[in-house]
């Protein structure tokens, strides 16, 4: 069995990449492989907001990732630089930047690119969905 990490740069609403990544993640877990980490970068970090309110007949990608993370104990990490400039902030980053609110979904964490490097070093395969 192999250890995977995923790099997701796809915008949640203008491309299919987030959905492809979720489907790929579910499939590899069904096959008994391990998913160490999903790293969100560039527009991919937009999915980490807990304030998305898509129409009822559309998939809520944030909730889909969160469900997978909670059920299968997977790390969902958003790049801090990519997230801050797109207005995706946790409590600590909101305070540090003197912002009035925060919106990071509790299933996600904010961290640095070192987490991507570590995932590449410690996984058998890194697959990118952009």
């Amino acid at each position: 069995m192999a250890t995977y990490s995923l790099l997701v740069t796809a915008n949640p609403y203008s491309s299919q990449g987030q959905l492809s990544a979720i489907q790929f993640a579910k499939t590899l877990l069904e096959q008994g492989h391990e998913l160490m980490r999903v790293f969100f970068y560039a527009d991919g970090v937009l999915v980490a907001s807990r304030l998305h309110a898509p129409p009822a007949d559309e998939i809520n990608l944030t909730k889909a990732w969160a469900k997978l993370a909670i059920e299968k104990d997977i790390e969902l990490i958003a790049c801090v630089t990519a997230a801050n400039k797109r207005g995706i902030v946790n409590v600590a980053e909101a305070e540090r930047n003197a912002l009035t609110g925060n919106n990071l979904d509790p299933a996600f964490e904010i961290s640095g690119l070192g987490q991507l490097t570590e995932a590449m070093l410690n996984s058998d395969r890194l697959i990118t969905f952009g």
Partner: protein
Amino acid sequence: MKSLYIINQPQKLNQALPFISEQDGILLIEDAVVVATYGSVQANHQTLYVLVEDLIARGLKDKVGVEQWNLVDYPQFVELTLQYDKSVSWL
């Protein structure tokens, strides 16, 4: 070292082809699956795959040139990423 090139938009295949070696594989996903309906691709002996779920979603499954393209599903997609040494998503 053989790589699996993952292509997700139709115009990216021609951009990527000059960089893809004979022993590599090419997998079309998302909007790129339409390329598998174009007839023959000027590939240089690479093995060609296309994701069947994305073909079905676009109503294109019966229009694929099956003698050149191998139809794979998500479980086979995962297996391909292990069969090749690394994956390159052409962005």
